[in-house]
C-alpha cells in the first residue's frame, strides 16, 4: 500500500508537468473504484459513467491545486462526491436520494442472489448519508479523517453516521448472517 501511494504521488508529479501518460495510468488505477462509488450513490450505470468521466476531467484540470499528493484518494473522492450529488440534485431535486441499486447482469453475479438481495434491501433502510459512510468505510477503506474530508463534515459526524448504519445493517442482515 505504501509503495502504491509513492507510485501514485510520482504519477501526480509527472502529470502536473504535462505527462499525459502518467495521468492515464493514474486514471486506469482509480477508474473502477471511483465508478463503483458513484454507481452505488446514484444507481444508474450510464449516469455513473458520465459522472466518472467528469470527475477525472476535473481532477486533471485541478491537479495543481492538490497540495499533498499523498491525499490524492480523498481529494479525488471529494470531487466524485460533489459531482454525484450535483447530478442527484438535478434529477431528484426533492432532497433525499432514493437508493435504486444497480442489479448486475445475470452473468456478472458471482455471489448468491439471496445475499445480494438481502444486502440491497438492507442498504435501502439507510439514509443517503449513512449509506455513503458505509460505502467509504466498508467498500473503499477510507479512514475517518479522509471520510470527513470527502464528505466535508466533522469526524464525529462521520462516526455517528457509520455506527448508526452498522447497527441498522447488522439487524437487517442478521438472518443472513446467522449460521
Amino acid at each position, binding site marked *: 500500500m505504501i509503495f502504491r501511494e509513492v507510485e501514485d504521488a510520482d504519477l501526480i508529479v509527472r502529470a502536473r*508537468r*504535462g*505527462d*499525459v501518460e502518467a*495521468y*492515464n495510468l493514474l*486514471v*486506469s488505477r482509480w*477508474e*473502477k*473504484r471511483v*465508478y*463503483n462509488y458513484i*454507481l452505488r450513490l446514484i444507481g444508474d*450505470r450510464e449516469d455513473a*459513467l458520465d459522472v*466518472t*468521466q467528469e470527475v*477525472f*476531467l476535473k481532477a*486533471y484540470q485541478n491537479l495543481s491545486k492538490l497540495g499533498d499528493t499523498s491525499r490524492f484518494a480523498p481529494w479525488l473522492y471529494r470531487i466524485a462526491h460533489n459531482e454525484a450529488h450535483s447530478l442527484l440534485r438535478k434529477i431528484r431535486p426533492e432532497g433525499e436520494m432514493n437508493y435504486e441499486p*444497480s442489479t*448486475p447482469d445475470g452473468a*456478472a453475479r*458471482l*455471489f*448468491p442472489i439471496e*445475499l*445480494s438481495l*438481502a*444486502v*440491497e434491501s*438492507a442498504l435501502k433502510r439507510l439514509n443517503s448519508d449513512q449509506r455513503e459512510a*458505509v460505502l467509504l*468505510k*466498508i*467498500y473503499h477503506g477510507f*479512514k*475517518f479523517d479522509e471520510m470527513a474530508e470527502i464528505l466535508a463534515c466533522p469526524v464525529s459526524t462521520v*462516526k455517528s453516521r*457509520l*455506527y448508526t448504519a*452498522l447497527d441498522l*445493517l*447488522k439487524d437487517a*442482515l*442478521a438472518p*443472513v*448472517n446467522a449460521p
Partner: protein
Amino acid sequence: MSCSSFDVKEYFAGETAGDDRRRIEKHLSECQECREELARLQLTQASLLAVREEEIPRRIAFVSDKVFEPGWRQRFWNSGPRLAFAAASLVACAIIVHAFVRPPAPGRAAASPALDAAAIEARIQRETAARVNEAVAKAVAASEARQQRKTAEMLSAMERRFEHERRIELATYSGQLALLQKQINRDFMLANNLRTVE
C-alpha cells in the same frame, strides 16, 4: 474498561492504534458480549463485501484526446533540450544587446544616425522603384514584340493557306470546264452524224 459498543465499532473500523488497540483487544479476550458484537459486525461486513464491484463498462480515456494534452510550449519546456534552448536564447540576447550598445566605428560621423537611416531608406526606395520600373518596361516591350511577331506569322500563314485553297479551286474549275467542253464537242459530233444519216 467498560463494554462500550463504540469502542468495539472503532476497533472493527480499524481506527484504533497503539495502547487503545491493545486495551480493546484485552477487553475482548475477557468479554463474551463484546466478542459477539465484533463477530456480528464482521459478518455484516462480509455480507456487504459479497456484493462485488462491477467492471467499468468502458475505459475513461479522455486524456488521450488532443484537447487535453499540454500545449506545445508546455511540452517543449518539459522536454530534454530546454537547457540548450535557454542557453541559445541567452547568447542571442547578448548578441542583440551588443549590436545596439556598441560604440560607433572610428571615422564615421557620429551625428544623427536616425537621419542616416532615413536617407538610406529613401535611397533604397528610389533605387528599388527605378529598377522595378525598368524591369516592367522591358517586360512590356518584350511582350509587345512577341505579340507583333505572332500576329505577322499568323497573317502570313493565313495568306499562304488562302493562296493554296484558291489554286486548288482554280484547278478544279479548269478541269470541270475542260470536261464540259469535251461533252459539248461530243454532243455536237453526235448531232452532225445523225443529220448526215437522215
